[in-house]
């Protein structure tokens, strides 16, 4: 190994050195750091559910709530979503503020992983909340034939008992698919940003 150190010392880097005037030009260039992407993607993930909600037809949704009889439940669910969202944003910001390039390598990786974990938990909270709301929907709709008839726009000739099970299975599969796709989308963005980081995290911790 001593020999390697000797070889190392003999590196001549003078040909690579950049002149001071050129270094100065570099100072005004834009950073391409991943920290910026973590912030942008996290904000998008925080905002997307609310943007989707903004564009939904609220009258139809309200009518559905009234039909199924879950107005109050949905009112509190929405309220909770905003409160929980605000708490997550607060924790995210607190963690993000602590990401500083002059920390040690282990500390920096740790901080970034922790910050992303806040977003991860927020996404999981949303997926669980969404599944729970769908579950309430299903229980309410499928436990009352009248509600089911109006909810699915079925006319009087349709025998509800015959279609009950296939409709239930289809609804559950449909909901499972939506939740799965949302989860998949999140895994892809999470993995895209953090795969290398998590490998290094394991590496430095062991």
């Amino acid at each position: 190994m001593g020999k390697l150190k000797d070889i190392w010392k003999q590196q001549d880097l003078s040909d690579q050195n950049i002149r001071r005037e050129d270094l100065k030009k570099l100072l005004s260039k834009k950073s391409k750091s991943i920290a910026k992407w973590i912030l942008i993607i996290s904000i998008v993930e925080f905002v997307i559910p609310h943007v989707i909600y903004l564009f939904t037809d609220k009258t139809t949704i309200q009518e559905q709530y009234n039909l199924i009889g879950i107005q109050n439940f949905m009112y509190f669910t929405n309220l909770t979503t905003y409160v929980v969202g605000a708490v997550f944003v607060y924790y995210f910001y607190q963690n993000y503020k602590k990401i500083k390039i002059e920390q040690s390598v282990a500390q920096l990786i740790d901080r970034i992983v922790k910050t992303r974990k806040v977003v991860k938990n927020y996404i999981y909270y949303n997926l669980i909340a969404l599944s729970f709301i769908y579950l309430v929907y299903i229980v309410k709709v499928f436990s009352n034939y009248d509600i089911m008839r109006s909810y699915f726009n079925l006319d009087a000739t349709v025998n509800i008992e015959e279609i009950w099970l296939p409709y239930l299975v289809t609804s559950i599969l449909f909901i499972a698919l939506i939740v799965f796709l949302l989860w998949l989308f999140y895994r892809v963005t999470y993995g895209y940003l953090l795969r290398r980081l998590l490998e290094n995290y394991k590496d430095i911790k062991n």
Partner: protein
Amino acid sequence: MTKSLEQQFLKDFDSNQNIAHKICRAYTSDSDSHNDLFQEITIQLWKAYPKFRGEAKFSTWMYRIALNTAITIYRKKKRGLQVSKLEDHNIKIPEDTYDREIDEQIDRLYLAINQLSDINKALILLYLEEKPYKEISQIMGISSVNARVKVNRIKEQLKNILNP
């Protein structure tokens, strides 16, 4: 004020440029990526410089930021090729001063370092730079004992790569 800060930074950075180049060479596999990473390191150093108050040596501070940039916050360009191409790093040297043997040995060493993991590259780089374990532990954020154990492990790994 900003002008004098900039002058001071350029002076400090200029005399330690080697550090950045060595890190770039260990973490990239072609001159394009090398320049790209070098640029990012320069920007990160400059952004952090106002907070540098000389509690640590400039070089220690610089290692920390440059390695953090290379390991954590720099997004590698998609290139598929992991192993360094010799010709990319071996230009601009005039024939008469060209010490072929030493140069080949340095290339071989970098090729071997290139095959290590991101964290191990940092550790062996600091070891080859003859940094004491205490300083390595401060830069990496692990204990001195752990740093020593890891470096010994990487030395073995490097030996096996160089003499299979």
